[in-house]
């Protein structure tokens, strides 16, 4: 199978979701969006504790970025 990646179409799809998400955030009370956001971010933060890279490697990676 040959994969074709259309960068422009990918951005358009991303922006469609952003419009949809922003409208939802504007519509619901703060408790609702922030509760869902907290669940996601807290799980990222928990996972970050298992980050095994040394600070030297991390800084090297960030410099390359």
């Amino acid at each position: 199978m040959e994969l074709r990646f259309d960068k422009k179409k990918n951005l358009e799809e991303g922006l469609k979701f952003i419009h949809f998400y922003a409208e939802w955030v504007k519509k619901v009370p703060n408790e609702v969006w922030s509760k869902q956001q907290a669940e996601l971010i807290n799980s990222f933060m928990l996972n970050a504790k298992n980050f095994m890279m040394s600070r030297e490697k991390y800084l090297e990676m960030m410099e390359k970025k």
Partner: protein
Amino acid sequence: MNLNYEHGKIIIENKIINRLDEFVLDFTKVLEKYTDYVIVSRYVVVLLGRARGTEDIDTIIRCIDKSLFDSFYKDFTEKGYYFLNLEDADGLYEMLEEGMEIRIAKEDTIIPNIELKVSKDDFDRYSLDNKSEVIIEGNHLFICPIELQIPYKLYLSSDRDIEDAVYLWDLFKEKIDRRLLKKFMERLHVKGDPHGIEI
């Protein structure tokens, strides 16, 4: 989102504070004892509702003198933070003087971290002079004005940055100073209309 935006102040009531917010609020409470600061870029959109993580919090500070930096270094170290860069206080201060960023995290962690740099151009200085105060659940922090944040994100121009710009536009288009937004878009030579940011 129940969001009150007036005269550069953003009030978000009843927000559930997540662990990333806690990390940033704890850090900025100490930082503001030493200098003005403003948070820019990725964390700004997370704070304002986008559901995604960020590993570093981009923060701009005003230039501080060496003795104040020494106190800053000592205070953060005593409070359980460490500097990821392999430098002592003198070396870190030199890095800031040379326009480089330094990174600070809680002990035994790398992510999240604060990426701290000293203001170096007119946009950084404008952000500090006109910072927006965000009030959440009795806490406060300072972010770059939305009118500059949107063009800056477009200027960075990765897909993720464009999405962030569009998200902020969708959220604030009825509230922001469009004349000011247009001015910054012209100065940064960016266009919003291809992405629906029409001013």
